[in-house]
């Protein structure tokens, strides 16, 4: 079965931002996403939601352009004040045109 290479964008962030980040993904052109609950530690010691529950880990398969747009917007809107991490990887997808 033929595959194409897409970008897998992963974002880990405070649960309180979940709604806003999913909106950002959709606006940037993502067609879907997968969410898992996570906890973690990074450069910020404490965060508001920490004692109340887990962070959110968001994965989305998108085209290279959309990936770039997501990364730029997340960096622009959230990096300064919130606990958030974004990274991008390659992934081979079957019938990948569904996701772009």
């Amino acid at each position: 079965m033929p595959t194409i290479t897409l970008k897998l964008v992963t974002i880990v962030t405070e649960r309180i931002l979940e709604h806003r980040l999913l909106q950002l993904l959709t606006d940037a052109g993502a067609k879907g996403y997968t969410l898992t609950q996570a906890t973690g530690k990074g450069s910020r010691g404490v965060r508001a939601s920490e004692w109340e529950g887990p962070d959110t880990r968001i994965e989305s398969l998108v085209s290279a352009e959309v990936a770039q747009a997501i990364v730029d917007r997340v960096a622009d809107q959230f990096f300064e004040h919130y606990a958030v991490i974004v990274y991008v990887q390659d992934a081979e997808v079957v019938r990948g045109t569904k996701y772009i």
Partner: protein
Amino acid sequence: MENLDVLVANLLSPIILAFVLGAVASLVRSDLRLPDSIYSALSIYLLLAIGLKGGVELNKTPFAEFVGPALLTLALGVITPITSYNVLRRLGRIDRVNAAAIAAHYGSVSAVTFIVAITFGTMTGAVAEGFMPALVAILEVPAIVVALMIAFTRSKRAGSWKDALHEVLTGRSVVRWVGGLLIGRVVGPEGFAPVEPFFVGGFQGALALFLLEMGIVAARRLQDLRGVGAFLVGFGIVVPILHGLLAVWLGGWAGLSLAGSAVLGAMVSSASYIAAPAAVRIALPEANPTFYLTASLGITFPFNVTLGVPLYFTFAEWLVG
């Protein structure tokens, strides 16, 4: 002597001992923890239960009796964030954003502190007015709005004021409490009877379990104490005492019973750690959560449930006696 008894009675209740057990477990790095989902289920249960009971009682309360305390509570919800803000700015030299963020917490209310106060009263035979839960609903939101207004009117902000308001009004804490009040108000005592065993019988035990977890959380917060500085530690004890004593005094004056005034004192004294942190995180992301969470959860909450609540009851007694 008698006051000491009151204090000891509180400290040796299973509820407070569960809190202490949780804190100790956390300090010895035990893996005793309630699963997150149990924690939130207990919190839904406790808030709904108190809301329901309060709503049922509202049914029986003449409006005239309720209006005075209600207006007083509203006024305190507007005043206490302002006093907090000014103390933080003037005495503590804390920057605007962080001062407003902390003020939102100390103006609003901690439902669990309220519940501990109510339970303490019941245990010692001083039953507060049935409509007290409705006062909690009145106290929760205004302070947050006032504190955010202070922050937003003084400069342009990064966060979203609209999102924050939506978060406060539709947040778990408010919906459960107000929802419970409304349901209780509508169904009345007969409608409440069949669900009473669930919501009343299990209440104190569930509260003990919940405080076990709160002890774990509070002790962990305590480890950030160094990061917040001596001023904030003092603030987290002194300002709640002052707010609390003021509220006890005004409560008696507005017609509340001894127990009612004491519980109002505990409410006003307490600092929010559910509604306020969520709203502040959205509206004022540049404020440092270490400050407001450590103060409200690591200092004021433990102080109030152990020493504060008996203090407000003792002061209320001294006022009437």
